[in-house]
């Protein structure tokens, strides 16, 4: 399963620069709004689901080499956050769905790690 399929199936908005999402293959997922928990639980190439949308999610995602961050419940990162994400090569996606629903859909698609 690649990131492009996830973006299409979940109808996610791509907030950062578009790139070849078909070449990104997420290895698993992690959901939390607490950054330290993400630091502990999310692994490289994981999808991170959160309703946090401020600048610090970029640093966390970049350090962990996260495949993409899905920002839920229509929380919208500001311009500086999106710019920083582009600079660091972090993909930010958004949706109106809450964390629980996004997790359910990812699980249904076969993302079980």
């Amino acid at each position, binding site marked *: 399963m690649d990131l492009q399929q996830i973006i299409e199936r979940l109808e996610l908005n791509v907030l950062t*620069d578009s*790139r*070849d999402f078909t070449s990104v293959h997420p290895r698993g997922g992690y959901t939390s*709004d*607490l*950054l*330290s*928990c993400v*630091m*502990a639980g999310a692994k*490289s190439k994981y999808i991170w689901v*959160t309703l*946090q949308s*401020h*600048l*610090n*999610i*970029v*640093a*966390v995602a*970049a*350090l*962990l*080499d996260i495949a993409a961050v899905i920002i839920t419940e229509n929380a919208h990162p500001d311009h*500086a956050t999106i710019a920083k994400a*582009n600079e*660091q*090569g972090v993909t930010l996606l958004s949706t109106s769905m809450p964390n629980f629903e996004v997790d359910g859909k990812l699980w249904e698609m076969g993302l079980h790690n």
Partner: protein
Amino acid sequence: MCPNRVRTEQEINGRRGRPITDQDAHEINRVEELSYDLKIHEVMTKKLHTASPEMSLSDVLEILRINRISGVPVVEDGQLAGVLSIEDIVRAMGKNDLMETVGQYMTRRLVTVASYDTIVKAMRTFAESRVGRLPVVNEENKLVGMITKGDITRGILLALQKDYKEEEVRRYRASHLFEDIISDRTTLVLRYNIKAQNFTHGGTASSHIKRALLRLGADPQIARRCGIAVYEAEMNLIIHTTRGGILKLEVEPHRITMSTTDDGPGIPDIEQVLQPGYSTATDQVRELGFGAGMGLVNIKRCVDSMDIESTVSKGTKLIMRIHIPTENLSGRKEE
């Protein structure tokens, strides 16, 4: 095409800016930047095929065919007089006029670009004039080359490749640091000043540290562990200290020592802060997703040893160490 000249260090750093990381490589920003950096003379074709106004169109057609090009500049008495393109010849063919002279059919309304202009200028001129190739003139208005969109693409690709090589060279040089400098004990020390409450720059020092370690040839797994530990320590300085503090990284061939030092407020009960979930973060900080009470727990998980010394109202010193297995030494023997 880009000439293979040697650039000075200053040119590389000043003109081309920072070297690109793997992540940047496919970002459009770099290409945009290069469009303003690269000069037309660096990417243009210098080997010129020219025609004169007296030549017959069929002769020029032969030049185009043999050299597989789609147009030539027309030069008269050493001066650029016009351009003859394949479209002009097609126009002549329609009238069965191939034995006519170049002068009859060439485009005289000349659009040129200057060799010292940036390629952005050439791209704009292409868009405005809707021509496929442009004659390039120097300061004395003398024809020095031709530029096509293909030349621009090639020039940008070459420059990107060069950037990539520069990063590789940096990485190579850094990774040999410990081999090249001989002492009884070599240590590389990096210091970062972290300001309190500066959430905007949270994680910046950690990112720099992770990149530095990768350049030094550290195992990615070790760089990642250092990155996580140092991020938590950096955020602690931002969230909890009175006036910020200093984050220090000491790299030695056999171990990496990370430490933070601050001058307050200090920790009253160290046992308590080591409990998972214990946090003193304010609601405001928690709203940002911090204050899970997992910072020190995470650090402990990532490093081989962690020591905290703290005195209330004096300050805290946190020392974290990661040992590097012998086979992962940056100055490792490759054979």
